[in-house]
C-alpha cells in the first residue's frame, strides 16, 4: 500500500512554488509507533512561531504496524488545505522508504533513518541521513519508550535543518503532554538529535521556517473536538453512541470536556452518556430522550447511518428532535474507514424509506463544527425533527487552524414546547390543543413532553399513520394532510437553517459551488486562478434543504462548478433533482479519491473545462 501524494505534480508548478514558510513536510512511519506525538510537536512549534500550519493524518485502518503518513503544511499566506506537493519527506518506515524516495518532488529534501535499508538513486533531491541508533546511544530514556523516542530524533534534526528554535519545541511538548516529566524526557532527545545535526549536517537545501505573527489569537483544534464543545454549549443532555471511525473522538471529546456540564456546587452532571450496544440502540436512545424533552445527540459514520435509517424515519414522521453527527468516511460498505469523503450527502438528505426529507447541516471547519454543534439543537427543537450534521474525517480528525469560537449569539430556543402553564394558556386561546395541528401556518405543531402535570397534556406518538389529533388513522385524506404539512414544515426549515456563504461579484461569469471541508482548497484555488486572470465567485452551501440564495447563484453565472469530494457528484445531483430551472450551466467536479481535496485539483479541473469553452 502506498499513497502517492504528488500525482505527477512538480513542485515548481506556477502558483505553487515553495519557499520560506511555504512547503509541505511528510512524515512516513509505522502506525502505532508514537510518531503522532512528534508530528504534533512540529505542528505546535510552527503554530507557536506564528506560521499558519495544518496537519493531515493519512493513516491506515489498523492499530499498529501498517504504514502511516502525516503531512504538515506551512503556508505564509494562510492556506491550510492539503498541498499537492511534498517538499520534505521524512522516511522512517522500512516498508515504504523506497516509494517515499521515489514520490518526493524534484528539488525536495529527504531525511532518512540511516539504520533502514534503502538506496537513494536520485540526484535531484537533498538527502540528510540520520544514524538514529548512534545518536541515541548515550541518551537516557525509559527503554520501553524506545520506539516512540526514535521519532523525536527527526524532530531534533528538523529543528537544525529548518530553523525551529529548540525552546519552542519544549513549549509544544508541554502543551502536548500537559505535564513536565514526559516533556523533559522527550525534549532531551530532541536536543541530542539537534546537537548531532548541528555538528554533522551541512545545510544544503533552500527550505526553512521563519517566525511570523499570523497565528496570534488563533487556535489549533480538531473538528470533532470543536463539535463536542459546541454540543456541550448547546445543552446536549443525553448522548448515546457506538464507536466508529472517524466519529469516535467526537464523543471521546464530549467526555473529556464533560466538566463544563458539572454543577460547581453539587458536583452533579447535567449530561448522561451511554455507550450503546450498536447504532440501532444509540439512535433509539436519543430519540427516546428527545421525545422526553431533553437535548440528545449521537455521532457516527456511514455504516452507523445505514443502521439508523429506519429509526430516523420514525423521528421524522413522529416529529421528534434530536441531533445526529455523521463524520463521513469512504463508502460504500465498510469502505475505507480512515479516509475522508463527502459521500453520505444524498443518503442523509432522504434518509429512511417513504417520502422522508431530512435537514442536513454542512460545517466546513472547526469554527462551524462548534457553531453547528450548539445551533443544531435549536434547529431540531424549532423544527421538531432530527437534524443531521455532516462533517468528514478531514474536518473531524485533523488539526485545523481556527479563530477562537464565538459564544452562542442566540439564547437556547426549545421551540414550540408547551409546559403546564403554556398549555393552560393555549387552551385559553384556542379552546383546544392537538399535537399535529398547524396553528401558525408554518407546518410546526406544538408539543408537550411526558411528565407534564396536566390532564390533557398526553398524546400518543407513533410511526403509523395519524391525523392532526395524533390518533391512528388509515384515511387517505388524513395521510395527505399530514404529509402536506410535513412538506410545508420542510419549506419553513429553509428559513431556519444556516444560509450559504456567498462571495459574489457581478463581473465574474464563473461560479464555484461547494460545501464542507473543500472550502480551504477552494479559497486557495480561487486565489491562484485569479493570478492568471480567472476571477471566480463562490457559494458555500451550509445546509440542506437549499435556501433561495443557491438558485440565485446558479442563475447568476454562465458556468457553475459544483465541487465535492465524493465519486458521484451528489450535491450536483440534488441540485438537478430540485431545480425548477435549466441546470445545463452546472458542471459537476466530483473527486472522491480518499484524500482531502487540494487547490491544485480544483484549479486544474476548472482550467480544463474553461479551456474547452
Amino acid at each position, binding site marked *: 500500500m502506498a499513497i502517492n501524494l504528488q500525482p505527477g505534480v512538480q513542485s515548481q508548478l506556477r502558483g505553487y512554488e515553495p519557499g520560506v514558510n511555504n512547503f509541505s513536510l511528510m512524515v512516513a512511519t509505522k502506525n502505532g509507533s508514537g510518531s503522532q506525538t512528534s508530528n504534533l510537536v512540529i505542528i505546535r512549534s510552527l503554530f507557536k512561531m506564528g506560521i499558519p500550519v495544518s496537519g493531515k493524518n493519512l493513516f491506515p485502518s489498523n492499530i499498529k504496524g501498517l504504514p502511516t503518513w502525516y503531512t504538515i503544511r506551512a503556508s505564509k499566506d494562510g492556506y491550510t488545505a492539503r498541498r499537492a506537493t511534498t517538499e520534505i519527506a521524512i522516511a522512517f518506515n522500512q516498508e515504504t522508504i523506497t516509494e517515499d524516495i521515489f514520490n518526493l518532488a524534484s528539488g525536495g529534501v529527504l531525511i532518512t533513518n540511516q539504520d533502514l535499508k534503502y538506496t537513494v538513486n536520485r540526484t535531484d533531491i537533498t538527502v540528510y541521513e540520520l544514524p538514529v541508533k548512534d545518536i541515541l546511544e548515550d541518551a537516557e530514556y525509559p527503554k520501553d519508550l524506545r520506539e516512540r523516542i526514535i521519532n523525536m530524533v527527526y524532530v531534533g534534526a528538523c529543528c537544525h535543518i529548518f530553523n525551529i528554535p529548540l525552546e519552542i519545541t519544549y513549549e509544544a511538548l508541554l502543551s502536548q503532554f500537559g505535564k513536565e516529566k514526559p516533556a523533559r524526557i522527550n525534549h532531551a532527545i530532541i536536543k541530542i538529535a539537534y546537537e548531532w545535526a548541528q555538528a554533522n549536517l551541512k545545510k544544503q537545501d533552500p527550505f526553512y521556517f521563519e517566525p511570523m505573527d499570523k497565528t496570534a489569537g*488563533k*487556535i*489549533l*483544534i480538531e473538528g470533532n473536538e470543536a463539535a463536542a*464543545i459546541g454540543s456541550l*454549549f*448547546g*445543552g446536549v*443532555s*443525553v448522548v*448515546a453512541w457506538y464507536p466508529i471511525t472517524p466519529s469516535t473522538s467526537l464523543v471521546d471529546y464530549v467526555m473529556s*470536556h464533560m466538566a*463544563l*456540564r458539572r*454543577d460547581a456546587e453539587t*458536583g*452533579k*452532571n*447535567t*449530561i*448522561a*452518556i*451511554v455507550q*450503546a*450496544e450498536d447504532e*440501532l*440502540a444509540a*439512535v*433509539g*436512545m436519543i*430519540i*427516546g*430522550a*428527545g*421525545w*422526553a*424533552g*431533553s437535548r440528545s445527540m449521537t455521532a457516527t459514520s456511514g455504516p452507523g447511518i445505514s443502521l439508523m435509517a*429506519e*429509526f430516523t424515519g420514525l423521528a421524522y414522521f*413522529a416529529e421528534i428532535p434530536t441531533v445526529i453527527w455523521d463524520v463521513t468516511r469512504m463508502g460504500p460498505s465498510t469502505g475505507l474507514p480512515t479516509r475522508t469523503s463527502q459521500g453520505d450527502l444524498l443518503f442523509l438528505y432522504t434518509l429512511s424509506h417513504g417520502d422522508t426529507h431530512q435537514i442536513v447541516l454542512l460545517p466546513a471547519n472547526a469554527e462551524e463544527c462548534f457553531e453547528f454543534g*450548539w445551533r443544531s439543537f435549536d434547529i431540531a427543537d424549532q423544527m421538531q425533527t432530527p437534524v443531521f450534521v455532516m462533517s468528514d474525517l478531514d474536518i473531524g480528525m485533523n488539526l485545523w487552524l481556527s479563530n*477562537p*469560537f464565538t*459564544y*452562542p449569539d442566540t*439564547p*437556547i430556543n426549545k421551540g414550540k414546547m408547551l409546559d403546564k402553564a403554556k398549555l393552560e394558556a393555549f387552551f385559553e386561546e384556542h379552546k383546544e390543543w392537538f399535537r399535529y395541528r398547524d396553528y401558525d401556518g408554518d407546518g410546526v405543531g406544538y408539543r*408537550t*413532553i*411526558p*411528565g407534564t*402535570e396536566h*390532564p390533557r397534556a*398526553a*398524546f*400518543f*406518538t*407513533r*410511526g403509523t399513520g395519524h391525523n392532526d389529533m395524533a390518533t391512528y388513522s388509515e384515511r387517505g385524506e388524513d395521510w395527505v394532510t399530514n404529509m402536506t404539512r410535513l412538506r410545508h414544515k420542510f419549506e419553513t426549515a429553509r428559513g431556519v437553517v444556516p444560509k450559504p456563504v456567498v462571495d459574489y461579484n457581478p463581473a465574474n461569469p464563473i461560479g464555484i459551488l461547494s460545501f464542507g471541508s473543500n472550502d480551504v482548497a477552494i479559497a486557495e484555488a480561487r486565489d491562484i486562478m485569479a493570478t492568471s486572470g480567472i476571477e471566480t465567485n463562490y457559494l458555500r452551501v451550509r445546509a440542506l434543504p437549499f435556501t433561495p440564495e443557491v438558485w440565485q447563484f446558479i442563475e447568476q453565472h454562465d458556468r457553475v462548478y459544483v465541487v465535492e469530494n465524493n465519486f458521484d457528484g451528489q450535491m450536483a445531483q440534488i441540485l438537478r433533482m430540485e431545480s425548477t430551472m435549466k441546470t445545463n450551466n452546472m458542471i459537476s467536479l466530483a473527486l472522491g479519491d480518499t484524500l482531502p481535496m487540494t487547490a491544485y485539483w480544483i484549479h486544474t479541473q476548472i482550467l480544463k473545462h474553461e479551456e474547452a469553452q
Partner: protein
Amino acid sequence: MANALGLERADYRGGTSTLCPGCGHDSISGQIISAAYDLNLPMWRVIKLSGIGCSSKTPAYFLKGSHGFNSVHGRMPSVATGATLANTDLIALAVSGDGDTGSIGFGQYKHLIRRNVPMVYIIENNGVYGLTKGQFSATADEGQFLKSYGKNDLPPIDLCMEAVIGGATFVARSFSGDAKQVQSLLKAAIGHRGTAVIDIVSPCVTFNNSPESTKSYDYGKEHEIPLHEIQYIAPGFVQDREEITVGEYSEGEMIEVEMHDGSFIRLKKLDKGHDPRSRSEAMRILDEGGRDNLLLTGLIYYEEPRLTLAETMNLTATPLAHLNASQMRPSAQQLEDVMKQYM
C-alpha cells in the same frame, strides 16, 4: 368509586381495542388499568412504550392520560433507555411481544436488563406473529404445527430465563387468563426500582389457540401451576406485618418481599416450594418448566435492585428534560477558558 386522586377506573382506560375479540392482550390491558387505578398512579408521570406487533398496539388501549410511544420493531428498549434518562421522574410501562422481544429485539432486551433501566417490561407472549398472519415466533413450542407453516423444529427461547441470566432483578411469568395474579405482579413490578420483566402467556385466539399449544387458553387453564399465591400490599397497609416471619422459608409459610416504595409482595408457597430470592432456584425451575412444558407462573426471581442506569451517572436532581438555560449552557468565561487551551 374514585381513587385517592379522585379518578374513576374508567379514567384509566384508553382507546377502543382493535385486536381480535377474546385476545389475551386485551385482558392484560384491563389489568394494567385496574392496577394503575388501585395504585393511584398519576397518569401524567407514566410513559407507555412499545415496539411493533399486536401487543405493541395495546398502549393505545389503556391510560389515555399518559404519553405513549409506539416505536419501531424490537427497539422499544432503547427508546425507554433514552426517555428514562431524560426524565428520571417518569414511570415507564412497556409492552412488547414474543416476536418483538424474542427476535429482532433480543439484543436490546438483554442490554436493557444489563443496564437495569427502571421500567415494567411486559411481554405478551403468544408464540406467534399475529399481524403478519401466523408465523412461528422464537417462543413457539418445539414440534408444534401451524396450518400455513407446518412443524416448528426449533426449540423455544425462554424469555424469563434470558432475563434471569441477563441480571434482571424482577422476573415473573403469568397467564393472561389468571387476572388476579397478573394484577398482583403488575402492582409489584411498578414499585420495583429496576427492570421488572413479566412474561405473560397471552393466547392468540386467531392463530395459536389449539388446545395442544402451550400458549392457548385451554392449555393455560388446565396446566397453569402457580408457584405461590401472590398478594400485593400497598405502602401503608402494614397490619400483621410483625407477625410474619421473614427469613427461613419452609412449607406452608408466607414470604414477604419489601419493595423500595414501601409496598410488599406476600407470597404463599404452593406445591413447588419455590423461593424467588434464589437465582439458582429460579433457573432450575425455569429449566424444569421448559423441559416438561409446565406453565409455572408467579414471581420467579427477585433481588434487591442494583443501581439503575441513571443512578450510575451522578446526574443532577433536576431531570435532564427540565434543565434551565444556565444548566444547559456554560458561561462565556468558561468558553474563553477552554479556548486558551488551544492557543
